C-alpha cells in the first residue's frame, strides 16, 4: 500500500511517499526556518504565504524522488491539526484537490499521532508502550495498548517544554530557535544554579511556567546586581531540572502500566541531554528514539500514522475534511 502524505501545520511544507507504513520512498521538507529567524519566531501569515508558494513544487519533488506514478498511490494522508490554521488549510486543501483529481481516498491525521509514529520507522512497536511527546506545542505522556489507540496519562498544565526552552534561550540572548542552543550549552556547564521544584506531585501532569519565570527573574536579578551570568551553568541547571521531571514521570508510567517499550516523540526528542538521561535511566524496557531527521515536522511521520489509522478501521474522510488549530488526540 502506497501512501502520499502532506504536512503543513507550522513552518515546514512537506510531502512524503511511503510503502506499507514502513519504507520511506521520499520525504521532501521545505523549511521556512531561515525566513522566520529574522522575526524571532514563526509569523503565521508569512508561514501561510510560504506554504502556498512551495506546495506544488514539494509534491512534484516527492513524486520524482520516489519514482512513483500517481496511479500507484492508494491513500492520501494529511495533517488536519493541531497547528497554525492558515498553514494547515494549505496542506489540507492541496491534499483534497490532489486526492480528488487523482481519484484517491483521503484521511486526516492528528499531528501528534504523526510524531508518535515517527518511531515506527526505527522499530516495530510493541505494546503496551509509553510515549513521551515533547515539542514546542506539546508535553504529554501517552499510553498505547495497541496500534492507533492513545490514552493520555498526563499533559502540561501551562507551557509546552519546547516553549519553555525557547523562552529561556531568548532571556539569555540566544537566537531562534533557542531550544537546540540551550541543549548544546547545557552539555558544557555545571548545574550550579538553584531551580524550583516542578515535580507536580504524584500526577503524570507537567508544569513549566514556574521554572521559566524563575529563570527570567534569576537573569534579571543577576543583571541588576551587575554580576556575570554563567550561561552554560544556567543552561545545565535548567535542562537538568526539566529532563529530570520528564524522565522520572516516564519511568513511573512504564512501571505502573507494565510497558514493554518506551519512546519519545516531537521536536524536543532531538534534545541530546534528554536522550542521554533516558539512555542512562530507562534500562528495563526497550527504548526507541526517532531518527533526528524525523523529530522535527515532516510528512513521512504523517504517512505512517495515516497508514495505521486506515488499517485500524478503514475509515476515510470526504471532501469536507477541514483543518483545525486545536484538536485533541484522544
Amino acid at each position, binding site marked *: 500500500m502506497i501512501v502520499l502524505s502532506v504536512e503543513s501545520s507550522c513552518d515546514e511544507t512537506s510531502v512524503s511517499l511511503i510503502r506499507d507504513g514502513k519504507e520511506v520512498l521520499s520525504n521532501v521538507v521545505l523549511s521556512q526556518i531561515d525566513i522566520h529567524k*529574522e*522575526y524571532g519566531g514563526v*509569523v503565521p*501569515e*508569512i508561514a*501561510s*504565504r510560504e506554504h*502556498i*508558494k512551495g*506546495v*506544488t*513544487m514539494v*509534491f*512534484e519533488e516527492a513524486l520524482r524522488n520516489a519514482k512513483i506514478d*500517481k496511479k500507484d498511490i492508494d491513500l492520501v494522508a494529511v495533517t488536519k491539526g493541531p497547528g497554525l*490554521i*492558515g498553514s494547515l*488549510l*494549505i496542506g*489540507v*486543501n*492541496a491534499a*483534497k*484537490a*490532489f486526492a*480528488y*483529481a*487523482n481519484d484517491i481516498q483521503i484521511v486526516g491525521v492528528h499531528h501528534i499521532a504523526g510524531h508518535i509514529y515517527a518511531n515506527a520507522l526505527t522499530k516495530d512497536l510493541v505494546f503496551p508502550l509509553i510515549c513521551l511527546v515533547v515539542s514546542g506545542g506539546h508535553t504529554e505522556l501517552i499510553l498505547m495498548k495497541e496500534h492507533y489507540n492513545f490514552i493520555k496519562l498526563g499533559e502540561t498544565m501551562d507551557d509546552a517544554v519546547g516553549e519553555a526552552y525557547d523562552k529561556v534561550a531568548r532571556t539569555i540572548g540566544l537566537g531562534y530557535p533557542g531550544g537546540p542552543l540551550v541543549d548544546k550549552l547545557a552539555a558544557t556547564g555545571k548545574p550550579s544554579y538553584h531551580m524550583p521544584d516542578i515535580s507536580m506531585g504524584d500526577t503524570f501532569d507537567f508544569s513549566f511556567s514556574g521554572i521559566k519565570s524563575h529563570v527570567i527573574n534569576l537573569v534579571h536579578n543577576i543583571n541588576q546586581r551587575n554580576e556575570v551570568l554563567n550561561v552554560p551553568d544556567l543552561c545545565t541547571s535548567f535542562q537538568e531540572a526539566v529532563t529530570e521531571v520528564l524522565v522520572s514521570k516516564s519511568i513511573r508510567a512504564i512501571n505502573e502500566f507494565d510497558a514493554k517499550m518506551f519512546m519519545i516523540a516531537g521536536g524536543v526528542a532531538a534534545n541530546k541531554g534528554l536522550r542521554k538521561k533516558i539512555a542512562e535511566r530507562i534500562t528495563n524496557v526497550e527504548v526507541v528514539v526517532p531518527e533526528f531527521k524525523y523529530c522535527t515536522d515532516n510528512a513521512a511521520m504523517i504517512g505512517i500514522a495515516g497508514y495505521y489509522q486506515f488499517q485500524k478501521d478503514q475509515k476515510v474522510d*470526504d*471532501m*469536507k475534511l*477541514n*483543518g483545525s488549530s486545536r484538536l485533541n488526540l484522544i
Partner: protein
Amino acid sequence: MKKSLKRLIIDSSTKYLYVALYSDFQCLGKYYQSGNNDHSINIMGEIESIFSMNNIKVSDLDEIIVGIGPGSYTGLRIGVVVAKMFGWNNGIPVKTVSSLALIASSFDGDKLILAEMDARRGNSFLGLYAIENGKLLLQDEEQLTNLEEYKSGIQGAYDVVSFGEPNIPLIIHSEIALLCKDIHGLNPNYLRLTEAERNLK
C-alpha cells in the same frame, strides 16, 4: 463539431465562495454562497458535486480561471491552492483574474464601477472599472487605501459595488484573465506585505 471549452472558475477572496463550471459561455453548475470561515469545508465538496452532476472529471477541464485577490488572506488562499493543484496535477492552463474585477463584473450600468472590499482599519481594497464596448476595463491601478479619500479623487459618476455574483461571459470577453506561465509560481495577489514585514522595515 468543435468540442466545447470546459472552464472551472473559482474565487474565495471574500466571504462569498464562488465555484462555477462553464461550457463555452454556458453555465453548467455553480455555487455562490456567503459563508463564515468555511470555504475550506465547502470548496472541494461543491466542486465534486458540480462535476459529478455533469459527469466531468478534473482531467476534462480545458482551463481554470481563479480570482487571485486581493481579499481576505486565509479564504483567498483556499481557492488559489485548489486551482494551483489542479493546474499542476493535470497540466491545465490556469488564468488569474483580479477578485475585484470579478466583483465589478457583477454590476451593470453606464457609470464607472468602484469595486470595494473592506480591508479593516479604515482601509479598502479598491479597483475602479468601466464597461466600454462590452468589455470590463481597469481605469486605475488597484490599491489598498481609504475608501472616502479614494472616492474624492474619482472624476465622473460611479457606483460602489461591494459584492455580487461574477459575470463570467463578461470576464471572458474582456480578456482580463491572464495565463499563468509557471504554475509553481501561481500565488495570491495580497496587495500588502504582512504586518511583521512592514514592522521590520
